[in-house]
């Protein structure tokens, strides 16, 4: 029972981190129709910038400055890259962001080298907040939860309660009409792209110390972010939140408990072939849930796309 609570907290941390990435991505998608493959790369840039800044000014200045730098970079990419590619259609846009992701990874290796950076949590947060049945919950995790929730509330407030948010929401659905009303839609696009990438930057800053700051960190997280927003429904902030938490908890729980395929198959009424090591199905029988935990989101996504192509909360087709 205690372990369930611990895993709920761990899954929450993973899920909220995923949410910070997918929130920006889903906003960008719903506005411009672009699936930004380089989104996780901005997350990586956030971590590296913050590490570099923390060497001189400490962790907190890194948390403040790095996302801004990433956001400005993102806006620049939109202004000088994506806007140019936009005229060729959606597929080149997608391919552009794909190439950008490769380029950013190479660039990071060029500047910082290939080893993991010793980017650490700030000392003020290096203590155990509380422990449940011998499992300690570091204070930093609590800090991560608070930051992510604050960002979600802030985002929700801006989008639904402010004038800027109204214009963004309108531009999501009727960009032509909004433009006709005299709003500068390209500027809004650039702004949303900048904010979306800055969010990814924040995620990088706070995840870098715990998940490691290394050139492969974007690749590890890259495609799972897509999976999240596809499951949640493209363009839906609530969908992104629900899907992120769902993925966080599914992967955490399937890693924390050794559910065995053997039990499932036996329960379904199959008999185990003997001798097992000679059977063509031996690998199927020996699968355990931690082995497949990280591919469960992909299975979920494929199923959702087949049966409900607009995702859990989406309103329109992907």
């Amino acid at each position, binding site marked *: 029972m205690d372990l369930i609570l611990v895993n709920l907290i761990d899954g929450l941390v993973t899920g909220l981190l995923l949410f910070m990435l997918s929130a920006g991505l889903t906003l960008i998608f719903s506005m411009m129709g672009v*699936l930004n493959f380089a989104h996780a790369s901005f997350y990586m840039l956030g971590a590296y910038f913050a590490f570099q800044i923390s060497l001189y000014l400490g962790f907190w200045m890194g948390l403040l400055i790095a996302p801004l730098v990433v956001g400005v970079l993102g806006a620049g990419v939109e202004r000088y*890259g994506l806007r*140019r*590619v936009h005229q*060729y259609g*959606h*597929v*080149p846009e*997608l*391919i*552009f962001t*794909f*190439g*950008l992701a*490769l*380029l950013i990874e*190479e*660039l990071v*290796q*060029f500047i910082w*080298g290939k080893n993991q950076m010793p980017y650490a949590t700030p000392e003020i947060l290096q203590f155990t907040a509380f422990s449940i049945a011998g499992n300690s919950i570091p204070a930093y995790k609590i800090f991560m939860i608070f930051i992510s929730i604050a960002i979600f509330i802030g985002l929700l407030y801006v989008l639904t309660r402010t004038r800027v948010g109204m214009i963004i929401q309108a531009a999501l659905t009727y960009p032509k009409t909004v433009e006709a009303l005299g709003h500068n839609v390209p500027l809004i696009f650039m702004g949303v792209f900048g904010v979306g990438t800055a969010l990814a930057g924040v995620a990088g800053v706070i995840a870098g110390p715990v998940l490691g700051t290394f050139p492969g960190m974007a690749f590890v997280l890259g*495609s799972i972010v*897509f*999976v999240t927003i*596809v499951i949640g429904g*493209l363009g839906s902030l609530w969908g992104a939140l629900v899907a992120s938490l769902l993925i966080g908890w599914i992967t955490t729980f399937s890693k924390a408990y050794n559910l065995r395929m053997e039990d499932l198959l036996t329960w379904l009424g199959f008999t185990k072939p003997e001798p097992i090591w000679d059977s*063509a199905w*031996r*690998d*199927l029988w020996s*699968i355990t849930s931690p*082995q*497949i935990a*990280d*591919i469960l989101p*992909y*299975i979920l*996504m*494929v199923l959702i*796309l*087949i049966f409900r*192509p607009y995702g859990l909360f989406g309103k329109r*087709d*992907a």
Partner: protein
Amino acid sequence: MTDQLTTDPTKPAQRIGAGSLTVPLIPWVLAAALLMVLPFIFTANSAITIMNQMAITIIFALAYNMLLGQGGMLSFGHAVYAGVGGFACVHIMNMDDFFAQIPLPLLPIFGGLMGMGLATIVGAFSTRKAGTVFAMISLGVGELIAACSVIIVAFFGGEEGISGDRTYGMPFFGVEFLQQIEVYYLIAAWLLISAALMYLYSRTPLGRMANAVRDNPERAEFLGYSARWVRFFSFVASGFFAGVAGALFAINYEILTEENLNTTQSGLILLATFLGGVGFFFGPILGAIVFTLVQTVLSLQTELWAFYLGIVFVVTVMFFPGGLAGLLMMHVPAMRLGKLGRLGVPYLKTLGSGAIGCLGAAGLIEMTFHLRHASAGDHSMTLFWITFDSHTILPWIVAIAVTFVGLGIARRTAPALAEAWNEANTPDGAPR
């Protein structure tokens, strides 16, 4: 609806065979001759290995372009069809009795069928929608099968993969495929066959409908074609040729690993295809050639090859969405007008100096890299056959000067090039 598609191709195919095929026959004969002669020019085994790799990539890229270029379907997991075809072939190689009865050159058929079988299963649900849904399903399925490769050890052999020996097959007219050169001719033959088949496919009504569905699925539906089935058939056909490429890989390397299936491989083939240009049939061929050279030859020269590749790729997408093939084909109108020659001098001025400028920039990048990452005390580096001390100021001045002068001249002469370009593309006597 489906009846139409399955019965129709027979009739017009004959028509095409008689009519439009005679004209483009010359490039094919030339290509065949070139493939015959190449090993006499490049005799080294490594050159032959690189050419084998090139040919395999070409088939794979062409198969990929059946989806991307001709069908408008962006797949992020196409490596699995090639990979699974290859794995099946290695398993056949390891079935001693069965393999001893089939000649090696027939093996790719089995690989193709395997790729096709998998594509039929996946295509059954993934081709219902194009666009993002298709792309995401392809990504998901790709990740799933790649992840399975380390879990299902019986078929995929885990991380170390599975290997076989091609020489245990039935001797083919006395050839046992011991030497690389024999394998080269096998692969070259399959390259010609598959390329020709894929070209013919693009000429069938089905291939044409794939274009129509790509450009405007709604209108295609109104014409009475099911967009979904058109996509499905393209997908299955593409799966077959991807499987052939995988089988040739199995023959050439005699080993398949998880690397053949993963998303990196899928991404690389997307890169190669797009670099060559998706708009023309020969685009992926160019892309595959250039890409293989960069990967195997440039990587011997510099550690930063992937960095340059990334830059080239992003620049291509931004400025030349037609890829290399698109660039080449831009010159066709000027050639028709007989004015291609007039572009020569402006090209030399702008592109020549631009290229020198780019080399200068690459030199700067290399020097920065050397300065940051080389061992202490190791100040000497070699660049473009010149050895110098990277910690002195002179090489930097030279490199910066070359970069700026080169790019500067390119910038200055660009308007003249644009002028010449317009001039070359305007028929004589036409009002300007």
